[in-house]
């Protein structure tokens, strides 16, 4: 399995990653090689195998729907690049 330039551009867009034009050939090579390694999986018959999502096949634990933490907005927003009046600021989205 190999990928081409247009795959790289498409996947980079889906992943919200800016990739320089000059680096695209390197990604084409690297990803094609990695997918070549991954391709070994296709030789195995897995028709009757149940997928394993989790090592211990554990069920999701539930708890009562109660408040378990306090509001720490100011503390967390102190880490943000841009905030105002308790809101996170981003470039204008709606005209």
């Amino acid at each position, binding site marked *: 399995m190999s990928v081409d330039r247009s795959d790289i551009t498409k996947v980079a867009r889906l992943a919200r*990653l800016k990739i320089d034009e000059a680096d695209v050939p390197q990604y084409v090579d690297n990803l094609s090689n*990695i997918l070549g390694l*991954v391709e070994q*999986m296709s030789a*195995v018959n897995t028709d009757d195998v149940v997928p394993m999502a989790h*090592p*211990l096949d554990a069920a999701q634990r539930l708890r009562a729907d109660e408040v378990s933490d306090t509001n720490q907005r100011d*503390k967390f927003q102190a880490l943000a690049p841009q905030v105002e009046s308790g809101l996170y600021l981003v*470039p204008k989205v709606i005209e």
Partner: protein
Amino acid sequence: MHTKTISQLSAVLRSGEVSSVELTSLFLDRIKQHNLALNCFISITEAQALEAAAAADQRLKAGNAAPLTGVPIAHKDIFCTEGVKTTCGSKMLDNFIAPYESTCTAKFRDAGAVMLGKTNMDEFAMGSSNETSYFGAVKNPWDQGRVPGGSSGGSVSAVAARLAPAATGTDTGGSIRQPAALCGLTGLKPTYGRVSRFGMIAFASSLDQAGPVTYSAEDAALMMNVMAGFDERDSTSVAREVPDYSANLENGIEGLKIGLPKEYFGEGLDGNIARVIDAAIKEYEALGAVVKEISLPNTGLAVPTYYVVAPAECSTNLSRFDGVRFGHRCDDPQDLFDLYTRSRGEGFGLEVKRRIMIGTYVLSAGYYDAYYLKAQKIRRLISDDFRAAFEKVDVIMGPTTPSTAFKLGEKADDPVTMYLSDIYTIAVNMAGLPAASIPAGFVDGLPVGLQVIGNYFDESRLLNVAHKYQQATDWHLQVPKEFQ
């Protein structure tokens, strides 16, 4: 004093022979002396360390000390430590002062252990050489032209150079065991769910597990006594009683059934390493263990399968780094898309971007069944191999790595070759089993690790099996010349 195990340091602190402040200062001095060359620490938390050491001394005097009270240790920079920069080896988090404490580091803090600093690592724990760190490569104390392994390379390099007597690490595909092998240390990856992942920055959530890096199995037991346990803040934490990991260290191992998977001794294994491992197995036979050849037929599929599962989970986990709430943000974003793509493009390094791309690709429309679902099915087959093996044997042994530490830069440009250096460690994470790497000898002056794989939650037995070997040998006590 700097070459003592934490078991010995715990004793000298109690006897009053040395105070925690003196001990902490000694290790801080050693870090300052050697960190420029080895680059194993990203942050040195001197002021906090001395404060914690003074508090530990009070506690020792008052007679309410725990075994690790006053013992200095280092934490991998993947654990959030409140008020201390937590980078995960990435430019993305170069400005991130963690607003809360991980459960793992909180447990050490509460036990009175003193944090010396945060250790270097492959960016977001993605790497096997510690060369993907934004903060630069880490050097192997046994040969500074070589890599220490990764991703817990900083923790392992620091302990091997005796800049810290023990450290925490994390292991997603071998990131504790592989560097421990390459630097001559004892490293343990516990059963998935045994140690809380709360506050441990996520890479691949169904594989990540924290564990100790120490000189000896006896020390690893002391660390596990602090780290292990249920945590309601980690939804995959296992509610199961924590044994005293020190209690069974001295048990005899006569009659222990050791399985040797033939797939771990075939093509690709360096002949000199094979000889070291054979000698270690002979030592176990001399101690009364019984050896049996077994087969783990799907071993060869572990690396290909891992490079679907881990990138898929990583691409999902790392979507939280968006340049909005914390972490790196690009200058002058034109619009929201530009803000996301440039912040992430600038904040992540090459290997992280590669893995996000692979993960996004295998999860994208039309490919999910062929890649991710297929990988989850093969994961089941890999896991079933181990289940079948543990019906016949008590532990599984083999080499931790196919070669000794490689040269800096040697594999940096070829991701697939780099990935294959984890060929013996990855299957264990896929299955969620516990495994240790223990020092078993040297090839041309470079350490070799013996991997010991146990059944689910059988860490006590792993540590017992490792300890008996360490009583009969002294590979684990060897110190690189420059750091003696």
